[in-house]
């Protein structure tokens, strides 16, 4: 976030300078103002258009079912009926709870497994480190649909179908490469001397990680965790195929609205708004750091 602001500050005088040198004869202020106005309008129209479906969904959640399917209108008397009704259907909480447990459970597990691994890659690199990192990235390239059949059959045989445990395992493994990569890039930025100093004072590896590394890279670990939560929360392929009723998360709950007799737009919108709101906020908070994780450090 800070880099954006710095950029903004530094490019302002430049832009003014450029226009000044470029068009010495023209009335400077008006050209700049019209250009700026057009740019502002364009920027807002484009952003508004892209965001519109989300805006519309949030709005529809506050309408009555009748108003929801009437002609599109911004003027209506807002009601919380749909929210209340969705909340009252006890199953909503079950699905939401499944989402929370699975997303946060798999994230914690992934962090637990990934932190030691990323630590050793960043601070005790060997010849094999690079190869291991790339190999981890390559496991992410295995399309889930290519292994759907065996995972489904294994889950059936081990009694993991439609269980939170099963889904948590899949999400942990699905996100593990990204989590290791992201942590690795954050850990690598930490000056080696700090950990060195701790080692001189006789800290064990465990103490080094818990008392030095983790507090120092907490923002990085947090954004890695948030990305993992986002990816697990929104994951739809495995949740639709491996769960049915007991362990189904919100993705599957929302999908159940797709049946033709389930045309309850206001309720669908209310449920959807609640399902995406926390993740949208997480996403807004971590967008900068997310790029690292999503591109495996190839774009900085």
């Amino acid at each position, binding site marked *: 976030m800070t880099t954006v602001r710095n950029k903004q500050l530094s490019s302002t005088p430049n832009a003014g300078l450029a226009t000044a040198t470029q068009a010495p004869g023209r009335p400077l202020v008006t050209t700049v103002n019209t250009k700026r106005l057009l740019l502002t309008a364009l920027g807002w129209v484009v952003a508004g258009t892209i965001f519109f479906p989300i805006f519309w969904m949030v709005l529809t959640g506050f309408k009555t079912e009748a108003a929801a399917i009437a002609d599109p209108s911004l003027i209506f008397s807002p009601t919380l009926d749909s929210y209340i009704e969705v909340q009252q259907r006890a199953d909503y909480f079950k699905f939401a709870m499944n989402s929370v447990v699975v997303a946060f459970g798999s994230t914690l597990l992934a962090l637990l497994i990934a932190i030691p691994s990323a*630590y050793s890659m960043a601070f005790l690199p060997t010849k094999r480190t690079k190869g291991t990192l790339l190999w981890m990235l390559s496991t992410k390239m295995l399309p889930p*649909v*290519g292994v759907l*059949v*065996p995972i489904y059959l*294994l889950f059936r045989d081990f009694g993991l179908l439609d269980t939170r445990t099963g889904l948590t395992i899949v999400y942990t493994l699905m996100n593990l490469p990204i989590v290791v990569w992201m942590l690795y890039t954050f850990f690598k930025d930490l000056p080696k001397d700090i950990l060195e100093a701790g080692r001189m004072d006789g800290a064990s590896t465990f103490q080094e990680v818990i008392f030095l590394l983790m507090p120092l890279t907490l923002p990085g670990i947090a954004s890695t965790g948030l990305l993992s939560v986002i990816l697990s929360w929104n994951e*739809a*392929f495995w949740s639709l195929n491996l769960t049915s009723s007991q362990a189904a998360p919100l993705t599957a709950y929302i999908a159940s609205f797709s049946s033709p007799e389930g045309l309850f737009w206001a309720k669908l919108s209310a449920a959807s708004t609640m399902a995406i709101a926390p993740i949208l906020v997480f996403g807004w908070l971590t967008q900068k750091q997310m790029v690292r994780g*999503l591109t495996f450090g190839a774009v900085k």
Partner: protein
Amino acid sequence: MNKTRASGRTVGGFRTLSLQAPAVTLLLLWMLVPLGMTLWFSLQRYNLLMPGMTGFAGLENYEYLLTDPALWKSMGNTLLLVGWVLVITVVGGTLLAVLFQQEFPGRGVARVLAISPFFVMPTVSALVWKNMMMHPSNGVLAWLAESIGLPALDWFSSLPLTSIVIIVAWQWLPFALLILLTAMQSLDDDQVEAARMDGAGPVAIFFFITLPHLKRAISVVIMIEMIFLLTVFAEIFVTTSGGPGLATTNLAYLIYIRALLDFDVGTASAGGVIAIILANIVAIFLVRMVAKNLES
């Protein structure tokens, strides 16, 4: 000094091993076991509905699949979907990145709004588009069309694949924007300034400075999107279920139909192998590019 370093390395080697073991072992299992099973099943006669019919099938499943017109139709749909979404998101994402790199009041908020769709779960975005945007009588698009005197379109029956492309592109355009905007931050302001001093217009600056600078980020976007787009599933699952007919069935959906609806494990696995091969062709390039980055 030398001695400590040498002993440190051996201790380090052992520590590295024990610290990395959990992650590496789990990922190895996660990759090799299902991969091996998929390969094995693809060579077996294995249908859950016909428990009596088992045994080695050789390449029968592949033969059956490769002569099935549904496979070619679904491959075609997969390529069309991937291709169009890539074109829309990369071209659109680049233009949007240039736009949101400019300064205007409220730029921060506008950026946040524009990248938001990426954080919406696929089932929600598919249903919002299907019901509230593209519904033939009550959707916003139908209302827009009617208010300018055009007939409303029944998107999912007249343009099924296009509709899916629109939904998926809407989800991935913000991803391209996010990555390209980040890449844009490292663009050298002085270089742009120098070009401007030399009389280069905005178009020239875009083609000769911005675009070359974004080349690498664009290829990363293309490769990462390809990996995900090759197996688009939820958007099809909740909107068209692959129909009408096979109009929106992609490879991922076909495998799902064969495996979980027809219970034909053998054929579905053969399809899985084909999907893995396709993804790996893309992956090789991506891994190579990231590897280059690791060295620098």
